[in-house]
């Protein structure tokens, strides 16, 4: 092209680069290695998928007794359907299981309603307080003629959700405060935060759960007991907060010092500077790793099995210990895995939505 005149006629890209053909070529067969990989993967799927469908759907039984299951060729989903109430609610009194069900529905409903942060207001805050109170009464009972239920009987999915919800809710702000403390110019606060974070990160969650359940009561005066679920909850919160703190610290360090200086030179106080300028930017930067930590916290609640609390994974195990249902662990665990996956996937999708909403160009008027 020697002419400097703009070309008036639009030149189309070659046919092999656009459309379905182009997509296949660019994504599946661009180069020897990728072509080979594509073929191998297709072959593997060809082998596995039909077998899985045969097992999971065609030969499977859904609503039978354990005995009939042992004769079936395919999957025994009966282990899930026949034990669903124990699996979900565990040792919560059978007649009262509508209460944790209602509590979970309220929780999920409130979370769903609050998903759009433009709806966050003082009124929604009060609504949450009311909802938490109602959920508490439903779970614990003893008020309004509801039968009291010991927290040791709380189990299954409600326990998992309870431990994770409060674990996440409390550990996030605590982690942010610890991160700020670690950056503090006041030596005592800084030292405390560093020691706390390093100590907690230095031990596995199981150790903390053990300490909270076995050692901690030894230090209490005689006659004083603290609820076992509450102690496990505290351990989860303290543990997760240390990880959040380090993630948030990364965000604080990622910010240009100019942001701190500009905020300071306007005369903002420390807390104004943090709340209005630094944290909104820093927390946004670290949304992906933060969600990673929160998702692991959610999954880590299954470790409470070690102190004999029955979360949903542990109720599943109990079912598999019943002779009638032994041997169907694959089916039972697939079901639990689906529940875990659903929750984690929801968290991860939600975090991406928030990230998008927080892009600095989103709301031009």
């Amino acid at each position, binding site marked *: 092209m020697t002419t400097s005149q703009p070309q008036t006629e639009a030149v189309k890209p070659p046919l092999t680069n656009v459309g379905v053909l182009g997509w296949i070529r660019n994504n599946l067969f661009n180069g020897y290695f990728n072509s080979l990989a594509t073929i191998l993967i297709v072959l593997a799927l060809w082998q596995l998928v039909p077998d899985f469908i045969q097992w999971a759907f065609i030969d499977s039984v859904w609503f039978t007794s354990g005995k009939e299951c042992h004769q079936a060729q395919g999957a025994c989903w009966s282990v899930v359907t026949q034990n669903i109430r124990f699996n979900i609610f565990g040792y919560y009194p059978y007649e009262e299981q509508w209460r944790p069900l209602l509590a979970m529905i309220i929780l999920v409903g409130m979370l769903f309603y609050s998903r759009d942060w433009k709806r966050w207001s003082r009124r929604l805050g009060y609504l949450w307080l009311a909802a938490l109170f109602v959920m508490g009464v439903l779970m614990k009972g003893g008020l309004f003629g509801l039968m009291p239920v010991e927290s040791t009987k709380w189990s299954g999915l409600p326990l998992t959700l309870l431990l994770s919800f409060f674990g996440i809710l409390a550990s996030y702000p605590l982690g942010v405060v610890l991160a700020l403390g670690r950056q503090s110019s006041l030596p005592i606060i800084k030292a405390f935060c560093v020691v706390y974070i390093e100590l907690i990160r230095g031990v596995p969650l199981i150790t903390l759960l053990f300490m909270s359940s076995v050692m901690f009561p030894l230090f209490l005066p005689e006659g004083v007991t603290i609820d076992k679920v509450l102690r496990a909850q505290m351990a989860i919160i303290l543990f997760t907060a240390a990880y959040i703190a380090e993630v948030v610290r990364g965000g604080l360090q990622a910010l*240009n010092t*100019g*942001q701190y*200086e*500009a*905020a*300071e*030179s*306007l*005369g*903002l*106080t420390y807390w*104004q500077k943090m709340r*209005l*300028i630094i944290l*909104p*930017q820093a927390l*946004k930067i670290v949304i992906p790793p933060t969600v990673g930590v929160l998702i692991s916290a959610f999954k880590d609640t299954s470790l409470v099995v070690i102190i004999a609390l029955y979360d949903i994974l542990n109720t599943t195990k109990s079912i598999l210990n019943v002779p009638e249902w032994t041997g169907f662990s694959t089916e039972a665990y697939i079901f639990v895995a689906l529940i875990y996956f659903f929750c984690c996937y929801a968290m991860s999708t939600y975090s991406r939505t928030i990230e998008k909403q*927080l892009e*600095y*160009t989103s709301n*031009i*008027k």
Partner: protein
Amino acid sequence: MEKQAEQGNGRPVIEIIEMHKWFDDFHVLKDINLRVQPQERIVVCGPSGSGKSTMIRCINRLEEHQRGKIIVNGTELTRDLKNIEIVRAEVGMVFQHFNLFPHLTILENLTLGPIWVRKTPKKEAEELAMHYLEIVHIPEQANKYPGQVSGGQQQRVAIARSLCMRPKIMLFDEPTSALDPEMIKEVLDVMVDLAKEGMTMIVVTHEMGFAKTVADRVIFMDFGEIVEENEPNAFFDNPQHERTQLFLSQIL
């Protein structure tokens, strides 16, 4: 010197007395003495690493000095946080890299200080912000985010943000050094207007044209010392010190 005597009837608005500063054991500022009268315009120049930025950053305590005194608008800068906040509210600062808040719109950048530090009602703060956006000639950009406007416009927003605090003093730390050449003028024009309005200004810059037209005094720093200070004509035409002569020969 004459000019200073003329205006010397009032109390200086900034007094720096025998000030020293070290970064660890590196002596960055040595025995700095400077008195700035109200409405005075001072340009600070010197080679890079001479301590000029550090000096003006000491005036609003972005850097801490270790010896001597800095008194701004009657308040001495000490470790007392209250004093520091009082001084910072009275002293506007414009940075080389603008340092706008990227998560806030331009309007929100401007109203932040008035609302949170001055406790101005939101509506009033927005009117104030629009007023200063007009002064820097970009009212139409109010609802954009800083990342969506040009460098020159960002720097003008940064100037307006400082002005919204109605400061008594404005500090400029190389305000045009990070700008593309074609944008330098629009920022300097705003600064010249500001000077005409009678703002007290200390400007660290290499824009010698600006120094000639606007400055009451030019200060030359090298190796952490104030080597020479004079009114601009004398400074440029007849530099006294050898190091000043060398510096001017390199940049003019």
